[in-house]
């Protein structure tokens, strides 16, 4: 992964010129917010790895402008001092995500093939990939597809499978609270599992690239939509993505992220709870509820343990 060390810290002035190239639709004035309350230091150069991680997550301080200081529980925060939203972040996100997006493309082809078999036209399959941008739910929807289309089942299943994104989005709040609503919501449109993980990793490293999610999401979107075209046109010609190990890419991205998110003893309880809850839920509940349930169980236990 490449990183420009000169962009890591104190980017307040240098960044403003990049704002003019801002690639987003809703971009207005430059948005560089300096955190004053945090004593944390941005890491320069390579990420802090699993070993010397400076401490727990930044506190998700959700009260913009209140200036509330990180609580005693979280005073080891590696909080980013600044979060910028500009071309550099888009570019970094896009480039970082390219190899991962290639793997996503493998699934896009599979989705295109399945959509073709389910009777969708190429245009319809591409429309779905371009507007829904959520792989697992699209593949399941296609499996439910029939004549007549079970509309309610498709919509409810889509919602259930994708509800995990609410939790993932909320986890970005410590950084995204510095950004305007249009930038946040625009970026979230292209959020997928893979680029959420990469974004989390980048933001934690202290780069402060608020546009990383948008850039990496655009890479995913491009390959997802392009591969859908290929799959839908090629029909049954293309092989199985598991043959090339593409099915392991998502797990590999998350494993790499787990290695970096590990914070030692403080992670032990929430991670054990999440693991146990997710495994049990995966056995008992259909679909992808287990992700949501695992995350919520860990958060609930942490809320209960607070102060103890």
């Amino acid at each position, binding site marked *: 992964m490449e990183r420009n060390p000169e962009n890591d810290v104190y980017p307040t002035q240098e960044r403003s010129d990049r704002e003019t190239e801002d690639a987003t639709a809703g971009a207005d004035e430059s948005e560089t917010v300096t955190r004053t309350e945090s004593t944390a230091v941005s890491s320069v150069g390579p*990420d802090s*790895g699993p070993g010397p991680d400076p401490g727990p*997550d930044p506190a*998700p301080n*959700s*009260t*913009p402008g209140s200036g509330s200081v990180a609580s005693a*529980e*979280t005073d080891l925060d590696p909080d980013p001092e600044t979060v910028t939203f500009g071309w550099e972040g888009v570019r970094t996100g896009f480039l*970082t995500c390219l190899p991962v997006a290639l*793997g996503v493309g493998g699934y896009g082809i599979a989705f295109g093939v399945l959509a073709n078999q389910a009777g969708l036209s*190429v*245009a*319809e399959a591409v*429309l*779905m990939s371009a507007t*829904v941008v959520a792989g697992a739910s*699209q593949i399941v*929807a296609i499996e439910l597809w029939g004549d007549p289309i079970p*509309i309610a089942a*498709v*919509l409810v299943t*889509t*919602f259930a499978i*994708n509800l*995990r994104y609410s*939790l993932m*989005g*909320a*986890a970005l*709040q410590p950084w995204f*609270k510095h950004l305007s609503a249009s930038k946040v919501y625009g970026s979230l*449109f292209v959020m997928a*599992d893979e680029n959420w993980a990469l974004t989390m990793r980048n933001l934690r490293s202290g780069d402060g690239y608020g546009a990383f999610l948008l850039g990496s999401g655009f890479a995913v979107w491009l390959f997802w939509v392009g591969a859908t075209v290929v799959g*839908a046109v090629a029909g049954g010609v293309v092989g199985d993505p598991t043959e*090339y*190990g593409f099915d*392991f890419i*998502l*797990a*590999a991205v*998350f*494993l*790499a992220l*787990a290695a*970096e*998110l*590990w914070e030692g003893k403080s*992670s032990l309880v*929430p*991670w054990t709870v999440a693991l146990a*809850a*997710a*495994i049990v839920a*995966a056995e008992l509940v259909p679909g992808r509820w287990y*992700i*949501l349930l695992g995350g919520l169980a*860990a958060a609930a236990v942490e*809320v209960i343990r607070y*102060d103890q």
Partner: protein
Amino acid sequence: MISDALSLDPLVVGVILGMAAVTVLTKVGGIWIVRRFELSDRLEAGLNVLPGAIVIAVLGPELVNGGPAEWGAAVVVLVVMWRTESILLALCAGVLSVVGFRALL
């Protein structure tokens, strides 16, 4: 043939846009709530553990459903990540080793 490929059934388009709307709701909903309401320190502590917890919740069942090939490749990813801190190297090593292990095991 070409016109078939480009055909758009109004009902199908409607269902697809419905799926898109529902998905946007899920992607935006969580952060919309935490942006809007003031959270107590206690709730923030809960929110703090979410990233790691979500990652583990995704991984746990995935690895449990896998076999020795996936477990071996998982170890490879972790070791490469720990030694190099390069996600690209870790990814490549993981994918190559899962293909290799699947052929061997």
